């Protein structure tokens, strides 16, 4: 209602999206940001013990430190973080808890991010760790890892509540004749935060192909999104990028730290079955969510090859089933990893692997 609708979709088979937002792009935007087409990968074999899944916070700290220094070229850690944030900012850390308590943005990593923000002068009360669903957040207990005063916030204290979303920023699309055709932005993002740090996991997703940076700032920021994957042919291909491009998300999201200590190679984004969990023991750092997600595809594909599971690009109908299964050779949906390249087309980053500059660090 606050702004003239913008029609995004032009391709004939894609849904018609009506994007409503009063926010204009910042200059510069956080996405794809100052490190467009660049990704820093850090691997640390001792970051997590596979048998117990115990995370070593000291190793995590080193991973973050080295990764961020490499990304920015700064030698001093405070200078690294001051490149992105000032003490006046209200910073949101967008975690991913959809697989919690088995896989989530690990609290040791989130705690280290908070430590770095506080070190450059941000008061804890200006830091928000947030997700959509309260029950998922509760299972992680981030508050016990961070200083008093840091806010731990969820949009939906009760599932389905719309009060935590800003009706003035929404995307309208009728996918399958559903009555509620709106997805609205998490209110915290539009009304309070000045900067966002995106902390997704490394996961396969049964509908989207993978779920990394883009999906965490898209589906992780809007209400009523699971309607996009009602049947085998989903709308994730275009919906993820469309949501991720809605202002003020790309303007405010200035940093992505992908937590790949644990990963999910099948049946994601949840992780109810441990046999589909794996341990890349990696983190990725960047400002370009498309480039980072492009690399995520390779990580998931490699693991699936090792497990003799079909590629996430496999669209064969004979692998489609209607019920959840423990068989990695079948799936409920046609996966849409092409959503990442689609997002590149919306100006959210670099997809072409030849144009992505990768720096790898081994600890």
């Amino acid at each position, binding site marked *: *209602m606050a702004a003239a609708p913008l029609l995004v979709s032009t391709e004939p088979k894609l849904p018609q999206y009506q994007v409503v937002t009063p926010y204009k792009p910042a200059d510069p935007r956080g996405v794809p940001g100052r490190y467009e087409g660049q990704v820093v990968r850090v691997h640390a074999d001792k970051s997590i013990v596979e048998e117990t899944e115990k995370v070593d916070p000291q190793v995590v700290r080193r991973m973050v430190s080295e990764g961020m220094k490499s990304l920015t070229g700064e030698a001093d850690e405070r200078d690294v973080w001051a490149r992105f944030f000032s003490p006046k900012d209200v910073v949101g850390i967008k975690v991913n808890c959809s697989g919690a308590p088995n896989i989530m943005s690990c609290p040791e990593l989130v705690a280290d991010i908070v430590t770095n923000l506080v070190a450059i002068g941000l008061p804890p009360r200006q830091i928000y760790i947030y997700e959509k669903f309260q029950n998922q957040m509760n299972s992680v207990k981030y508050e016990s890892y961070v200083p008093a005063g840091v806010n731990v916030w969820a949009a939906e204290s009760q599932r389905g509540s719309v*009060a935590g979303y800003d009706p003035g920023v929404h995307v309208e699309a009728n996918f399958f004749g559903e009555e509620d055709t709106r997805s609205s932005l998490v209110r915290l993002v539009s009304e309070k935060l000045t900067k966002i740090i995106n902390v997704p996991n490394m996961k396969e997703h049964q509908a989207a192909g993978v779920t990394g940076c883009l999906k965490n700032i898209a589906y992780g920021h809007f209400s009523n999104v*699971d*309607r996009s994957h009602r049947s085998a042919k989903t709308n994730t291909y275009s919906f993820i990028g469309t949501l991720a491009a809605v202002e003020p998300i790309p303007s405010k999201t200035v940093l992505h730290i992908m937590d790949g200590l644990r990963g999910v190679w099948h049946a994601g984004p949840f992780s109810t079955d441990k046999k589909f969990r794996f341990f890349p023991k990696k983190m990725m750092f960047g400002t370009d969510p498309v480039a980072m997600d492009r690399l995520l595809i390779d990580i998931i594909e490699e693991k699936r090859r090792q497990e003799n599971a079909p590629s996430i690009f496999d669209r064969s109908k004979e692998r489609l089933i209607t019920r959840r299964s423990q068989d990695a050779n079948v799936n409920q949906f046609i996966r849409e990893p092409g959503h990442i390249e689609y997002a590149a087309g919306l100006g959210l980053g670099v997809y072409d692997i030849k144009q992505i500059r990768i720096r790898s660090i081994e600890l």
Partner: protein
Amino acid sequence: MIFLWLATLLPVLYWDAGPETAAVLQKAGITHIAVPPALESQWKRLKGVSTSVVDIKGLTEAPVPSIQRNLNEASATRRPWIDSNGWRFLREPKARFYTKAPGAAAALAAAEAFVFGVESFVQTDEAGLEPLRRMIEFLRQIEDLKLPERANIGFIDDGSEESGEIMNLMIRKNLLFRIVAAPDSSLDLNVRPGSKEYPVAGGFDPEATAQKIRSELTDARRFLRIYGSEVVIARIAGNQKQVRVYLLNYGGSSRSVSDVRLRVLGRYPRHRITMFGTPQVEPLDYVADTQSTELTIPKLTAFTVVDLLAGP
């Protein structure tokens, strides 16, 4: 043709037990009941509970309004099936209805009949007495504004089962219609089941028909949209100066819907919300622009009345 809202009929508790149960009624605060003819004389002798007489054999039975969640069916929508009597009430507005609704569902049954303006008798169990009494009291306090019903679809009901199914889905989808004898050019859309546009022969798909009606009307022309819930059915009455929206929460007999967002066509800067079981309700994110009025209502109970007013 203008239909005046008929929501002046208050539902009545139907009670087929004898006067020995009077204490149960009095404990729930019930002061009036409808009884079968055979019990009339016994109840007449009792003070404290007034009675009217009704023979349910002469009434049209309406199923208990409710929702059914199909948890065994894989679906991303989580849309439950709503059992609403709205289409029955619209088809037979002069019929007298009878609903057997246990527990808190009795309150929803009463509200549903009230909203659709039909005469209704509700039978319930002991657990349903108090909710039903409170709902009837609530309904009694709602001022009858005598506003014309708002609907922009004319439906030519031929009385067939197929027509009933289409009407049922239109009710559930909040596609606001009224039954017309012939196409009404003052309406945005007219639907005649069995016509070339809306065939009912061979492979009849009521869901597809309802979707086609929605598509042809377009969401932009709908008087009312509801976001945030698929278990709330609305009826709307009014004009350019004032609009009244009735919201029936079909999940409301078991739990409240957290919040819903309404979009009503037209600019109505002022509001008044009256909610069953809740003393005071203030909307969130109220926006009235030149095209529409939007507001979020927190914690919707079984029945809510939203009055929207134009002007400063």
